[in-house]
């Protein structure tokens, strides 16, 4: 049985990175938080200290545990400060070159050869990120869901070359953080976001087929299905731009193959997560009402009805998903 990493580096001090670092220091690991931007690093540390304090006030953990966790947390202003880590989890922006550069620099003379490098990507292939590392076998995916401290799931993703013992370290560390750990293989959306694709895609189809309105589909999912949020309110919460990026990435990772499963093809994701969302909350299609008359027929041009930017809240989740009891969740 592999043991959880005792010294964990987190590269990227945004909301997701800080959330992961919080989990790491609470799980008893010496935790080094890195960000190339000093202000971002300071904000990340402040976020963690604030959460540790509030968690203690709310009884999620004791004040002593919070203090001990804070003591285990340190800033790593330079990438070379991550040298002692047994595991480095990157939570950098979702750009392949950026993550590749990060792992290349870390593995070319900063961390030891046995150090596990984990990417928290939700939309890039782990294998692609791993290809830049000196030892791709040490690279795995650790896909946390947003917000990382609250969502209980961790997807451990095996890239093509990931070594079994590296995956085992990721799993053990996730369990030490209190996560429910599942195994997924590398591919568009890994396991969870992949299986969730039809939730958004079919709702878009139902809308274009005029089976029901945005409001009706959301309500049916909540009241008849028991989902906490319908697909359209969820999409608005996560953000159209995020959804579009995810759709693009699904498309590219399917090698632009429309395939037999249209859900992974180009028209599906891009209609589902991009274009239709431009209709926004107020983009009610004409001809669709709560009680359709027999043989109703809507006109085809509904796209000028809603303000294009209407109904897009400022909230930006970390990715797709989150039908949640705790509100926004999803692939961060």
């Amino acid at each position, binding site marked *: 049985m592999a043991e959880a990493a005792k010294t964990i580096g987190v590269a990227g001090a945004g909301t997701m990175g800080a959330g992961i670092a919080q989990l790491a220091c609470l799980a008893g690991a010496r935790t080094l938080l890195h960000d190339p931007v000093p202000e971002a690093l300071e904000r990340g540390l402040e976020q963690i200290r604030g959460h540790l304090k509030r968690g203690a006030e709310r009884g999620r953990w004791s004040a002593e545990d919070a203090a001990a966790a804070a003591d285990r947390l340190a800033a790593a202003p330079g990438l070379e400060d991550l040298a002692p880590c047994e595991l480095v989890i990157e939570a950098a922006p979702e750009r392949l070159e950026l993550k590749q550069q990060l792992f290349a620099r870390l593995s070319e003379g900063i961390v030891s050869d046995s150090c596990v490098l984990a990417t928290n990507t939700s939309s890039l292939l782990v294998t692609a990120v791993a290809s830049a590392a000196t030892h791709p076998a040490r690279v795995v995916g650790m896909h946390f869901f947003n917000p990382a401290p609250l969502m209980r799931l961790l997807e451990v993703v095996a890239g093509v070359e990931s070594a079994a013992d590296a995956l085992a370290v990721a799993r053990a560390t996730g369990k030490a953080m209190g996560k429910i750990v599942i195994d*997924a293989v590398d591919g568009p959306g890994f396991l969870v976001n992949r*299986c969730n694709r039809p939730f958004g895609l079919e709702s878009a189809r139902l809308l274009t087929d005029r*089976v029901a309105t945005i409001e009706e589909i959301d309500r049916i999912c909540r009241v008849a299905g028991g989902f906490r949020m319908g697909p359209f309110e969820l999409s608005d919460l996560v953000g159209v731009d995020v959804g579009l990026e995810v759709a693009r990435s699904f498309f590219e990772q399917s090698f632009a193959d429309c395939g037999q499963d249209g859900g992974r093809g180009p028209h599906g994701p891009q209609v589902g997560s991009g274009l239709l969302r431009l209709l926004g909350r107020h983009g009610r299609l004409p001809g669709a009402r709560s009680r359709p008359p027999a*043989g109703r027929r809507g006109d085809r041009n509904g796209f000028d009805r809603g303000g294009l930017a209407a109904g897009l809240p400022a909230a930006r989740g970390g990715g797709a998903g989150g039908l949640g009891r705790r509100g926004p*969740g999803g*692939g961060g």
Partner: protein
Amino acid sequence: MLILDAGDEEPAAPLQGGPMAILCAGGSLSALDPGGSAVGFHALPPLAEAGLVELTRGPDSSPSAVETTERFFATLGKHTVWVGDAPGLVLGRMVCQVINEAAFAMTEGAGSPDDIDAGMIHGLNYPRGPLAWADQIGLDHVLSVLDALHEELGDDRYRAAPALRRLVWSGRLGRGTGEGFFSYA
């Protein structure tokens, strides 16, 4: 009198006047009752937890079928919403497609059934795991919705996962038979 036809099979004896409400699983209302006066309905188990039932009507649905069916579900304490005609209506189509994708993922070795269900519940706050949900709905019901979507809409995105079809062929229909994606023995 209200007769609900919730079965996939032919009624043993012809119903007087035919059913008034037809379960839109194995097809849309217009496919199941061409030119008929019935209305369509669809809901997914667990029915006790479902607060809403979807209804649909065709050009020839009789006013009495509309009223009687609405009233029937109201007496059960369910809200109703009228939607357009399609196999599985709204929720059935969405959930059956999620189940289908999960079945494909399972077949391809992308994840175990346990991990798929745990992932959807704990990662995305699904009300229940899609594969356990399928076992509760009945895999034959899920397959009939997918096959009807495939046939009526002609889109390969509705192609049923071979694993799902094999389970149905082998009589493993879910909780009702003691085994489906999971075993309930």
